[in-house]
């Protein structure tokens, strides 16, 4: 026991058994989104309501396509961790874990659909 560091003895404790990894993950993705979201607003927003040919030509360019793909990828990852906390706070009993699993599937599904669509337009 004397050979264990304080850090080692704390590992795996706490209600989630994860330490601060969830919080740190949200910090990383939020900083990324701080840059991505404004870029996405002004690229995606410009094309909303535009003719189909213009939209396809615009998202075939590298910058708008990469911004859109990264925003959806990081955004849905940030969402999946955020909605998990929402469910953990308000849903009790047997529905909690199925709901978290459902929202993880929705998040990955939506992100994959978006990435597929952007790739198809861009390539």
């Amino acid at each position, binding site marked *: 026991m004397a050979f264990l560091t304080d850090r080692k003895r704390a590992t795996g404790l706490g209600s989630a058994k994860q330490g601060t990894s969830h919080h740190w993950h949200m910090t990383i993705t*939020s*900083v990324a989104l701080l840059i991505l979201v404004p870029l996405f607003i002004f690229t*995606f*927003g410009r094309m909303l*309501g535009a003719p189909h040919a213009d939209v396809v030509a615009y998202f075939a360019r590298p910058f708008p396509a990469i911004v859109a793909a990264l925003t*959806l990828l990081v955004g849905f990852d940030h*969402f999946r961790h955020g909605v998990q906390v929402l469910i953990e706070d308000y849903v009790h009993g047997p529905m909690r874990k199925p709901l978290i699993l459902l929202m993880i599937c929705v998040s990955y599904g939506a992100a994959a*659909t978006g990435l597929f669509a*952007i790739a198809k*337009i861009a390539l």
Partner: protein
Amino acid sequence: MADVNRGNRPLSPHLTIYRPQLTSVTSILTRITGNALLLGALLAVWWFLAAATSPSYFETVDGLITSWLGDLVMLGSLWALWYHLLSGLRHLYWDTGRGLEVPTAEKLGWAVIIGSVVLTLVTVIIL
């Protein structure tokens, strides 16, 4: 949880009997905007999918998203996006251990509310 007798001791105030304050309202709004953004995000994904599929499918989806109801959802999502972004910025600042005094936290709260409305208006004017 087992219904144990907790005695007749005072309990800490909770949402139902707690007077709403700027700090609590802005915090709750952060959660609401973040989670409600799912709707706008799914609409954006649908829009991309339609654009990747065919011009006629794109016209349908784009028409739906730019209808008056779609515009309303997108305007709300735009504000929610700016609000959640500014509020997240506030959390990153708090994470450094600064700005946690009540007067500062309230000032930051007003900055988030006013800032999100201003940024929404600026975005609508530019786009």
